[in-house]
């Protein structure tokens, strides 16, 4: 499903080259839930960005669903994301001054969806993530947990096969974090392939996590136990 081959990713900041990922080789199967674990700056978020085709590797290949996404043009990358990826960002990346519905439908807007389909899909995700009663509220007026549910609903609106979550519980209390973990379990049960980048210990000994990849300074230091 997701394959990284000899991935090198460098960033140039003020004429200085920083290696974010160094010679990464990895494979994630369809339906797995993988946790990328490591301290800040270890390269977890860069791994997710490469999987979502939000950036290109300096060298190496990223293959998802038999598509070499690291070679796709900008427009095809966007289309690939639109069709296959649901991304839950660390800071949610919602548009703060529009309402819940308008935020959730954002990924579908360019596809000019059929109204009936959109309404049905919207109802499904809002119900699934218990946000229906807040649908007309401006997002900046929601609590952190509610904003995260909006972000998850938005990631799910296009019914993606792959869900990527970057530090999803960083801004949540333990109760909400556990609720989010429960949501992930349900999504996995739906057959979604999920990759979570986190350093939250709550994720480390979950029985439904397929594997935990331990990262440090842009390298994978441990592939963890593979459950399925």
């Amino acid at each position, binding site marked *: 499903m997701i394959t990284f081959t000899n991935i090198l990713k460098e960033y140039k900041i003020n004429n200085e080259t920083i290696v974010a990922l160094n010679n990464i080789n990895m494979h994630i199967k369809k339906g797995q839930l993988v946790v990328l674990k490591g301290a800040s700056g270890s390269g977890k978020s860069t791994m997710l960005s490469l999987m979502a085709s939000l950036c290109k590797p300096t060298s190496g290949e990223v293959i998802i669903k038999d598509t070499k996404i690291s070679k796709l043009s*900008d427009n095809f990358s*966007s289309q690939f994301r639109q069709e296959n990826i649901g*991304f839950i960002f660390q800071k949610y*990346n919602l548009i703060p001054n529009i309402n819940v519905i308008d935020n959730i439908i*954002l990924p579908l*807007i360019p596809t*000019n969806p059929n109204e009936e389909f959109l309404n049905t899909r919207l109802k499904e995700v809002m119900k699934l993530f218990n946000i229906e009663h807040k649908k007309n509220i401006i997002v900046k007026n929601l609590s952190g947990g509610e904003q995260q549910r909006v972000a998850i609903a938005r990631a799910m609106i296009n019914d993606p096969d792959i869900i990527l979550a970057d530090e999803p519980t960083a801004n949540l209390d333990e109760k909400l974090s556990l609720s989010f973990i429960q949501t992930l379990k349900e999504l996995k049960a739906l057959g979604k392939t999920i990759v979570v980048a986190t350093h939250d210990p709550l994720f480390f000994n979950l029985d439904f996590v397929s594997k935990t990849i331990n990262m440090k300074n842009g390298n994978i230091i441990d592939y963890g136990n593979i459950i399925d």
Partner: protein
Amino acid sequence: MIKINTYLIEFAINSILREKTKNLFIFIVFTMLIFLLSSIFLITASLQKELNITADSLPDIILQKMNAGRVSDIDINRVDKILEINGVNNSVSRVWGYYYFENAGINFSVVGIDQFETQYKKSLESITLKHDFSELEDFMVVGSGVKKVLEKNYYKDYFNFIKPDGTFKKIQIKAIFDSATNLESNDVILVSKDTAYDIFGINENKATDIVVNVSNKKEVATIAYKIKMLFPDTRVITKEDLKISYTNIFNYKSGMFLSLFIISLFTFFMIIYDKSSSLSSSAKREIGILKALGWKTDDILKEKFYESFLISFTAYIVGIGISFIYVYIFQAPFLRDIFMGYSVLKPQFNLIFAYDLKIFAMIFFLSIPIYISATIFPSWRASIVDADEVIR
């Protein structure tokens, strides 16, 4: 068939409303610019139409005697010699001049007519056919503007002209002059030729000028040349010469305004470009989020296009709408005076309805596409950067 993406348009409208203050400011400035330019062109079109109608009613040729570079009275016996030229339809001597009405601080055009003479223009002909002045010793027919001014100054039925020797000449108002255009009739007072001679103190063997009409309009230039050869001390002005000079005056004035407009429009777009090219971090972030959610660069540009088109096109329509109201309902206060020059010396007149679609097309293409480009280009630059870089 291309299906319009209403969700994208809705999102664009939402985006405009989210930046209410900024977009309202741009809208107001844009509307003002369009309003100003459109008003200028509407005034020009109206005055040109007015002048064309007036010019059409003018005689084909006007003959003025020149003396030391100044216009002086001309011998009326020259009329007979002009009539001998082949192709001349009629020739009439005119007695007319400007009479300054001190109380109101304006000039009237006093024109002498003879009931039994061939009239050189239709409006005068209709007056002489409609009214019989032959029994009256002194009479006057006034334009509506003159009538208003006189009434304001307590002259309801008559007016006292002051002759060059300082004595008064009381003349009864017989009728109101009615003509197709304001400029032609508004400031005019028609009197008998004898009265005109008396008011201006002109010798009865002389006239202010001589007008000539030609049967075949293609021969006007040739006949004008012949007259000039016959009377070298005269200035021969054709109707075409007058039309060109009128057009030149208005083209010059509207050209000046157009230059000013282009400079202000250019400055406006530079400010817009400067503001937009340093897109705020939240605007950049929003573009990054949309990219991360699967929006293509084209989708973002389309959305930005809708945003800028909605603002600029609405401003364009509103600006033009207001200019129509300003020019044709409120009669363009301030701007009209600039175009009319020393119009305070003339009675008030109304701008007649005239417009040129080509001008509106020109304003459209001079403003909207430039504005759209100035706003879209910075968004394009932000959207081609890796989304990862923007949202991190």
